[in-house]
């Protein structure tokens, strides 16, 4: 009896409140399926196979002359760059007067298992760049790559420097041997030949497993506890569900592309050693000689700073800038820090060169 009386009544109160929140949750918030991740108005202006080129509608009267094309990553979808108005990377750049295009890689099917780096770099990305050049009457455009999208855009920029006026690499996957993340450890021990031969495209479920081993207790338990604790906080809940929906929607990665990515980047580390070939063409990072801005997140647990940073030192540009931010992989592109610090710095740098 005595031990029962020692329980702090606040604990019982907290437990009851938490249980009530869990029960009330379906009444208070939308199901992730009911949430649309399309935020800033845009038009699909060009399509090739399953890829789409999105053109965002301008938010300013005057715009900088050089358009910016964003090459999003191969994992998850482009929506994180426009996840909600107050944290939208795209909207912020539109408000700064930039003309923004986004390349949506689409959803590959079994039929696309033979798509490789060459298709993505010299096919889809090059076609999108050519389209924008023609539409905007520019001989060169600005290009930004994020995460694995930056691996593709780095290769593109090295192969087609004549089309890129400014290059922005945001958390690029470049030096696989220096990468200290769990992802790189799994990638280094993967029998990727057997994997692609047996199952074709890399299934989303495999990606979800890889994500689940990153901070498993914070991300797997505490995150959801916080969600239910804050169920009355509309802003928090809305942001949480949007990011969760984005996290739970990753397309398969074409088998051949995945194979080349794991082997050339993580296992043999060819890109940073200037030994990588795409479609028979040699990738020489020294050919990246235009103004280049590299953005790195110090707390990135998906692409470690050691993996991204070597790009800054390997390229041939004389006008190059390296910025490091005290945030994580997603925090760098979709947070209040990105709105207050990362985007204003990028906008200033880009405006001076656009």
């Amino acid at each position, binding site marked *: 009896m005595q031990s029962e009386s020692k329980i*702090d009544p606040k604990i019982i109160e907290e437990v009851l409140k938490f249980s009530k929140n869990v029960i009330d949750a379906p009444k208070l918030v939308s199901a992730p399926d009911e949430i649309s991740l399309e935020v800033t108005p845009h038009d699909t202006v060009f399509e090739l196979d399953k890829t789409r080129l999105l053109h965002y509608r301008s938010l300013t009267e005057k715009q900088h002359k050089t358009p910016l094309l964003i090459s999003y990553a191969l994992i998850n979808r482009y929506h994180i760059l426009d996840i909600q108005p107050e944290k939208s990377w795209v909207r912020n750049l539109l408000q700064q007067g930039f003309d923004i295009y986004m390349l949506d890689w689409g959803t590959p099917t079994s*039929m696309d298992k033979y798509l490789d780096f060459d298709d993505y770099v010299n096919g889809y990305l090059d076609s999108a760049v*050519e389209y924008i050049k023609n539409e905007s009457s520019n001989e060169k455009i600005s290009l930004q790559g994020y995460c694995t999208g930056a691996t593709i855009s780095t290769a593109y920029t090295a192969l087609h420097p004549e089309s890129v006026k400014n290059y922005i690499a945001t958390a690029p996957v470049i030096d696989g041997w220096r990468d200290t993340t769990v992802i790189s450890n799994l990638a280094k*021990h993967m029998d990727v030949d057997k994997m692609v031969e*047996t199952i074709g495209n890399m299934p989303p479920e495999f990606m979800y497993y890889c994500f689940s*081993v990153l901070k498993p207790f914070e991300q797997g338990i505490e995150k959801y506890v916080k969600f239910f604790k804050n169920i009355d906080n509309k802003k928090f809940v809305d942001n949480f569900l949007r990011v969760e929906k984005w996290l739970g929607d990753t397309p398969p990665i074409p088998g051949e592309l995945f194979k080349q990515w794991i082997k050339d980047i993580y296992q043999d580390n060819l890109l940073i050693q200037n030994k990588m070939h795409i479609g028979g063409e040699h990738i020489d990072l020294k050919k990246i000689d235009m103004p280049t801005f590299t953005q790195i997140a110090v707390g990135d647990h998906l692409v470690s700073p050691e993996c991204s940073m070597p790009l800054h030192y390997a390229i041939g540009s004389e006008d190059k800038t390296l910025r490091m931010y005290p945030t994580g992989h997603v925090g760098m592109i979709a947070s209040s820090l990105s709105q207050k610090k990362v985007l204003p710095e990028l906008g200033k740098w880009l405006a001076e060169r656009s």
Partner: protein
Amino acid sequence: MDSSKTTMDYYKHLSLFWTDLIHLMSSKPQALTSTGPMRAFAANSKKVTTELIEINEDLMGFNQYLTEYYKQLANAWEVAQKKVNLKAPVVPQDVEQIEAFKRIWIDIFDNDFTELFDSKEFGENYGKLVSKELELTKHWNNIANVVLQSVNLPSKEEIDEVYKELHSLKKRVGKIELELKKREAKKNAK
């Protein structure tokens, strides 16, 4: 391990012997069923039997790596829990203490498990585990191919051939189209 391998080999041999023999003995009267799904019944049964026997062999390997996988997780859990006990030996009594305890628990567990997932031992075992899982998938695919071919449908390899050919053609056409567009743009610019 050795005796189970010998037993496995014995049953494998026994099964193959009888399916081969039945196949040879029944090859002539097969004419009656030569166009139906049963037309290659003996040969198909042999393929399926072989795959099933090999699935058993791979399943043993898979279980070995799976056991190691959970052993690694269990060990990491045990070590992390000991660290938590050392850092927070007193049972939390109020909301603030519970919150502090939870933070210590999550930080230690996340650190220790990240260390495990980042280790060579984990990476190697996980790679082997996935590899064995793929072997199992391969056998399953092979069995499915036998069924597909018995009903006159293309096998996975045949479909892959078509995809490969299609990909190569699309690539060639795409490059020609892009080249033409670039030339046209240059011409217009002049």
